[in-house]
């Protein structure tokens, strides 16, 4: 059941209505039924994977707790629990790995074996990829790690745990929640609040605006440019690449807004997954603002453990002794590299995603290594760190880096991505501006479509600026006089209904991050 379907809109409206009609005590049961009903709509077979993960992680966590309660010593308990955790993680990541990466690995290995002319090939198989598997697997393993670390108690109610892993608004594209943030809210029955309902539905509408009016409109041009980049000039390729960066942000954050909005309408407050990522002034800062639930997961369960691992300490000592300045940073390089490679791979099976991970990790490592040199340059050139123009420069520079980086994940191959990047080195501004209308139309959108898309992006940008300044948009709107509020909301509704890309001929109903 796609978020972009009348069926889903009727479904979530019905769930919200039934939620408030159900006695407080049993509201979580309704959510569980709705969530499994939603998941079932994507197939019975895929539901078995979810049930299996739920059972394994639930059982594993209970087992760890039991070991902790009955062990002779803390050390012995930790040792046993570590094994349980590893087994659990192996099983869950194993399923994810096989379903998502097997064919990619087999295909590449076959190519490699073929080079040596051995008569052997790994079979390629048609595997199903359960909806949201990357998201619920990470959420499940995160929960297990937290139980292992003793940060949370293992859930005793299997059904309530099943709800934590299957809460329907987040099944399509996350976010990845921590047990402590989500489960208590799901269990608790929330009293009806008109403010929550209004704010929630406003957020859903805003999500649809971003998805249908911006992302899916940009998608036409993006598909065109990435599909046959060799027929476009440098400026057109660059426009396609920039539009893709906007598309993926509007698409993903739009979906997350819908998720958060539906939850908020039922009184469940979910933290945001984005904090204006394209306003980040460095690549590292960008990643602190983009898909925060995933990057935080990586930080807490991959980066920190690696950074504070015994071997990192050893490397650090050696580095400080032998390499002076860089040596101090050395313990951070390996975790950074591993983390970003994992982030790249998490996004999908393909060399483009691996290249994307490598691209980000190398940029961050180099920028860390070159920080002293940069600081020296800034000092010599008297660049004031807080100056507006300098901050703008940093933001544009970071955005440009991400535009190029994201091209690796969207192009058909790394070769194509590099060819596109190369094309943008030859920008003929004179020719472009002299024939701007035909150049833009050739990209794949007509005159009116460009006007509407540009206006929608400007609205999105303006809202982002306000949010960056700390303005809570919906609270601010709610303080406006009634006619202003209604004009804004009905205007947004009109924009979605009229300018939204849906209906006959529309096929991109799934979200980009649904495939990750």
């Amino acid at each position: 059941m796609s978020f972009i379907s009348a069926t889903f809109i009727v479904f979530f409206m019905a769930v919200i209505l039934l939620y408030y009609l159900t006695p407080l005590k049993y509201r979580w049961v309704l959510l569980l039924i709705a969530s499994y009903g939603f998941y079932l709509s994507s197939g019975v077979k895929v539901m078995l994977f979810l049930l299996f993960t739920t059972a394994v992680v639930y059982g594993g966590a209970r087992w760890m707790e039991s070991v902790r309660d009955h062990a002779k010593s803390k050390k012995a308990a930790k040792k046993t629990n570590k094994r349980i955790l590893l087994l659990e993680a192996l099983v869950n990541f194993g399923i994810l790995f096989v379903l998502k990466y097997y064919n990619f690995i087999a295909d590449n290995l076959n190519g490699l074996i073929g080079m040596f002319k051995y008569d052997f090939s790994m079979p390629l198989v048609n595997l199903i990829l359960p909806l949201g598997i990357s998201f619920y697997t990470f959420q499940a393993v995160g929960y297990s790690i937290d139980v292992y670390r003793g940060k949370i108690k293992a859930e005793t109610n299997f059904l309530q745990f099943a709800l934590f892993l299957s809460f329907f608004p987040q099944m399509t594209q996350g976010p990845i929640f921590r047990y402590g943030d989500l489960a208590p809210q799901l269990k608790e029955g929330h009293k009806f609040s008109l403010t929550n309902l209004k704010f929630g539905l406003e957020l859903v509408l805003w999500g649809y605006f971003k998805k249908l009016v911006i992302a899916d409109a940009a998608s036409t041009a993006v598909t065109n440019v990435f599909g046959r980049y060799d027929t476009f000039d440098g400026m057109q390729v660059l426009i396609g690449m920039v539009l893709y960066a906007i598309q993926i942000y509007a698409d993903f954050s739009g979906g997350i807004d819908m998720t958060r909005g539906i939850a908020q309408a039922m009184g469940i407050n979910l933290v945001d997954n984005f904090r204006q990522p394209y306003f980040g002034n460095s690549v590292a800062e960008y990643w602190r603002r983009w898909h925060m639930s995933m990057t935080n997961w990586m930080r807490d369960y991959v980066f920190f453990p690696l950074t504070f691992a015994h071997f990192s300490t050893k490397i650090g000592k050696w580095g400080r002794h032998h390499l002076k300045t860089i040596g101090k940073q050395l313990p951070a390089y390996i975790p950074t590299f591993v983390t970003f490679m994992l982030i790249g791979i998490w996004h999908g099976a393909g060399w483009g995603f691996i290249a994307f991970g490598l691209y980000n990790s190398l940029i961050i490592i180099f920028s860390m290594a070159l920080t002293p040199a940069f600081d020296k340059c800034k000092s010599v050139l008297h660049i004031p760190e807080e100056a507006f123009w300098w901050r703008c420069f940093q933001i544009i520079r970071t955005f440009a880096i991400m535009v190029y980086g994201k091209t690796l994940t969207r192009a058909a191959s790394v070769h194509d991505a590099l060819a596109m990047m190369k094309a943008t080195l030859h920008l003929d501004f004179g020719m472009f501006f002299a024939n701007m209308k035909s150049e833009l139309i050739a990209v794949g959108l007509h005159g009116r479509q460009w006007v509407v898309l540009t206006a929608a992006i400007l609205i999105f940008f303006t809202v982002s600026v306000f949010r960056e300044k700390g303005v809570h948009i919906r609270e601010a709107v709610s303080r406006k006089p009634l006619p202003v509020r209604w004009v804004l909301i009905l205007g947004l509704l009109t924009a979605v209904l009229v300018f939204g890309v849906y209906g006959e001929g529309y096929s991109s109903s799934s979200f980009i991050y649904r495939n990750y």
Partner: protein
Amino acid sequence: MKENKKKIIISVVEVFLFLALAAGLVAYLVDVFAMEDYNHAEQVFNGFYDQPEDSLDGIYIGSSASYRYWIPTEAYDKYGMKIYCIGTAAQPIVLQKYIIKEALKTQPDMDVILLDIRRTRIGGSLGEADMRRVTDNMEFSDNRTEAINAALTYYRKSDGQISYNKNYYYFPFLLYHSRWADDFTLEDLNPADKDAPFMGYMFDDRGTVSKKNIVQPTYTTETTALEPQKKKALIDLLKYCGTLKQKVIFVSSPYRIPKAEQEAINESIKIIKSYGFDVLNYNTDSMTKAMNLDWSTDFMNGRHLNYVGASKYTASLASYLEKHVDFTISKNKTSTELWKAASKNLKKTVRATYKRLGKEIPS
């Protein structure tokens, strides 16, 4: 406590007002972003729905072979009969049953139903727009849903190259909202005043054209088999008509009929008569002479009469109806002013159009 109660009441009122406003907005958008139809189908349906309940003596259903032929206001002026024309371009036969059902909802005591049979001919387009001109403009109801389902089944079996996603027929807005990027103009923002001005008759500049080189065809009595789906739809329609209390008359209006088409229409007539219905076939020597049809002046093109020809056709058909239909059931008189105004409007428009085009005004 009192303050709290007041707050709740205000909130509830606010929510209902907002929902009403949103519903109004959506209804307006649905109206604005409808199919751009240059063949006045939307106006025809709007005009029909605007007829006071139980006020019509009959309806005339069909393709352009009806709305370019039957001038309801002239039949009204001369005989007082109010027979509204629900004609839409290339109207598929399969939908005619549902148009009758729709009409009977508000006009259950009509005396006569006229059905044009030109679409039973061989070949002819099977376009999505032909279907949409009817289904998009019908009011939301079970009948409309049934009409859509029946038409899609008919099209599918006839290998019609159209979209078969029912949602786009149930909710045409899903398809047409994207018109903003193409042919949408500021004028479209004002969807008001879209009633058919002449009770379903279509008069425009083309109605004044007098095509000179139209020659009378050679008529034949031979027959040929109908296309299976058309035959099935016709028989289904006949069976349905057999259940009605109204007098149902099938009509084949005159045009420069090719031989193959006439053979198919002759076959249709044979089938219709076998079910006991009357057929008025104007594609014969005797009928064209009886209506005083002038092949050198009365056609705008080979397939349609101009205004002068339509007047003759209307006079002939109305005279027949006067003699053969029992118009005795008393009707709601509140529509009289509406019909008088439409008649006056047509006369005025005809005069103005001929004058504007520098042509001689027909007497």
